[in-house]
């Protein structure tokens, strides 16, 4: 579903990603771990077609980037730490707008389904500016899955959420994962990542330094695996 080979990304003289290789099979939930400044967000922005690779090949859902970016965007949902929502529109109006932008026909049914999934049915007529951070983030997830994407990218979805909001988000993410969609999530929250992901990759100094399937962890926990990967 995602194939990345020898990806290099440079900003001026600074190289952020240095020949990164990364593959994700359909239905996998990959947690992309790594310290601050490792290049996780830059990598996700390239996968989302928001940034162009300097060198290397990137294929998402069978389409090459950056040449077939419109096709990739149609198959992709993105949740970042910013909600990408308009505060002066209601939850429903925000979703209606994005539904039009994704060319969804009969979108009202889909909006009802999504609002139900993220638990915001009762707040559909409320302005997004009145939402808490956790509610905004749940609606942001609703926005990202509205067009039923094959691949969903989550960039630090837990940033700024309190315990209750994080637990609510866990439920939503588990629900999404159960639908068999391919997910790549960056997170510093290893405990949450461990509960959700089926594979863990560590991105450090611009390359994937370690990768392990959940089944192969055995007695080890993700924290040990992460520490070892960084030490190596």
């Amino acid at each position, binding site marked *: 579903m995602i194939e990345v080979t020898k990806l290099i990304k440079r900003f001026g003289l600074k190289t952020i990603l240095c020949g990164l290789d990364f593959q994700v099979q359909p239905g996998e939930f990959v947690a992309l771990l790594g310290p601050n400044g490792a290049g996780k967000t830059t990598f996700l*922005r390239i996968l989302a077609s928001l940034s*162009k690779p300097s060198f290397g090949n990137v294929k998402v859902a069978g389409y090459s980037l950056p040449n077939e970016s419109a096709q990739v965007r149609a198959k992709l949902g993105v949740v*970042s730490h*910013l909600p*990408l929502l*308009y505060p*002066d529109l209601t939850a429903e109006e925000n979703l209606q*707008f994005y539904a039009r*932008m994704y060319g969804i026909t009969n979108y009202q049914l889909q909006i009802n389904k999504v609002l139900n999934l993220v638990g915001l049915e009762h707040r559909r007529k409320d302005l997004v500016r009145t939402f808490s951070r956790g509610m905004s983030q749940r609606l942001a997830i609703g926005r990202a899955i509205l*067009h039923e994407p094959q691949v969903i990218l989550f960039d630090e979805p837990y940033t700024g959420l309190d315990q209750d909001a994080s637990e609510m988000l866990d439920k939503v993410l588990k629900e999404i994962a159960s639908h068999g969609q391919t997910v790549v999530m960056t997170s510093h929250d290893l405990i949450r990542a461990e509960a959700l992901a089926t594979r863990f990759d560590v991105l450090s100094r611009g390359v994937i330094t370690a990768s392990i399937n959940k089944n192969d962890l055995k007695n080890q926990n993700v924290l040990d695996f992460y520490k070892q990967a960084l030490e190596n």
Partner: protein
Amino acid sequence: MKPSFLKATFAIIHKDLAAEFRSRELLTAMLTFSVLVILIFNFALDLNIDVRQKVTAGVLWTTFAFAGTLGLNRSMAVEKDRGCMDGLLLAPVDRSAIFFGKAISNLAFMLIVEAIVLPLYAFFYNETRIFQWEFIAVLLLGSIGYISVGTLLSAMSVQTRTREILLPILLFPITIPVLIASVLASGAIINDAGLPQIITPLNLLIVYDVIFIAVSFMFFDAIVEE
């Protein structure tokens, strides 16, 4: 699923108008600023009728140009501040649909402000010739040129920390041809200079509009991408 160019453009216009009519932040700022400028010029230029007639077109276009930068800045800042520009760029639509959607929304806001300011201007400056169709045509053409290049430049300046300062610095030098042609055409109408005096700046405005729209259309994609 990919929406048509027109559907995506109208979705953006609809979203911008709905958000603005609810918050009224942008229109209030533009209107307040315009009315204040008109009032200040009214008292500052306490001149005889002849001199007033000569400067009146310049006063009007200066007001609209400065008010326009307020609107352009705010319109793009809304997209940038909560990451909504990324939301637009992630949609499987032609990027030029985003440009036209934003440009048409900005033009609508500018025309609303002009429609409210013109009667006030006519009252303070005792000038009724600004309601002639020729004047309205100049106003429309001048606004189209100004907003098309303004939308492009605001998409660029909004990505910087000094966006409020950068936009006018970039915009005013580039739009000088449009502003000069608009002032010349408006002045000729107000001073009853006759059709030949109006036609030349009007033609210039049309040419500039076509060039500015084409250039903005061509470069918007490159500007919004990292």
